[in-house]
């Protein structure tokens, strides 16, 4: 599987993602600058975290109109895996590939901390080798990660088993205040995943947790 890691002006988790593919999993990966318009040769696309365009206007709002987005939307609609992490999730929402919105955290603070998330849907390429209910530890680092959507959309996500990850229910569980404790969601076809927590930054034990690597292993189909 050949991966593309998209790089926008202001991306800052692109190297972390590249490192996971290239050095931990030893699979082919390229950085792809946001002005590129042809993604045909790649089997999967990762939109990394960061502050694309300085988060000006709204998070992800300007990146959504980068030249590369048209091809990402085309490949996503054709069924290719597209994985957005943090700012990548915000861009996927702005581009309409995922529903809802990510607004400022409930206590209006930038949160940089480890969180526990639980695997909810295992029906996706990203979560197929994880157990439902398994708890994973990884960092969040965002100010706009508070997932909201109207009641109908929230019910649809639930009914269609499209909530991939939820924040842990217990004390300090849902730090940004997301509806239904949503930490990550899938599109209807289940090939697009957006999540606020950073599995690429919890992919080796030296980083304090290697729980995140299992999501990447799931994508490439190794255990």
């Amino acid at each position: 599987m050949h991966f593309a890691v998209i790089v926008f002006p202001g991306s800052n988790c692109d190297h972390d993602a590249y490192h996971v593919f290239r050095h931990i999993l030893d699979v082919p990966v390229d950085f792809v600058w946001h002005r590129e318009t042809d993604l045909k040769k790649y089997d999967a696309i990762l939109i990394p975290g960061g502050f694309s365009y300085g988060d000006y206007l709204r998070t992800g709002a300007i990146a959504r109109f980068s030249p590369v987005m048209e091809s990402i939307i085309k490949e996503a609609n054709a069924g290719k895996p597209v994985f957005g992490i943090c700012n990548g999730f915000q861009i996927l929402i702005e581009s309409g590939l995922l529903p809802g919105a990510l607004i400022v955290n409930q206590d209006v603070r930038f949160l940089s901390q480890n969180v526990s998330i639980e695997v909810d849907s295992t029906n996706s390429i990203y979560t197929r080798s994880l157990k439902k209910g398994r708890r994973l530890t990884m960092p969040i680092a965002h100010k706009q990660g508070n997932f909201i959507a109207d009641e109908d959309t929230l019910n649809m996500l639930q009914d269609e088993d499209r909530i991939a990850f939820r924040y842990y229910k217990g004390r300090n569980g849902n730090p940004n205040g997301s509806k239904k404790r949503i930490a990550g969601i899938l599109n209807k076809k289940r090939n697009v995943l957006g999540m606020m927590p950073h599995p690429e930054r919890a992919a080796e034990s030296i980083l304090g947790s290697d729980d995140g690597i299992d999501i990447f292993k799931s994508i490439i189909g190794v255990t």
Partner: protein
Amino acid sequence: MKAKIYISYKEGILDPQGKTVSHALDAIGIKKINSVRMGKYIEMEFNGISKDKASEITDESCRKLLANPNTETYTFEIVEK
């Protein structure tokens, strides 16, 4: 000619910043405020086009980029400077 654009959260969308500012106003003794909603104010300038054209361009800008239709609403006025 100038467009004055006001973008605010839709009714029913939680506005954590507005809520925090509301609490802060209360804390410094300014009372009788029911709620505070925060939004954005944007100005755009035009040269040599009609008011209708300016209005059309402003509306398209709001729809396509400036406001998020999921969470925000917008209003604008076109004024001569």
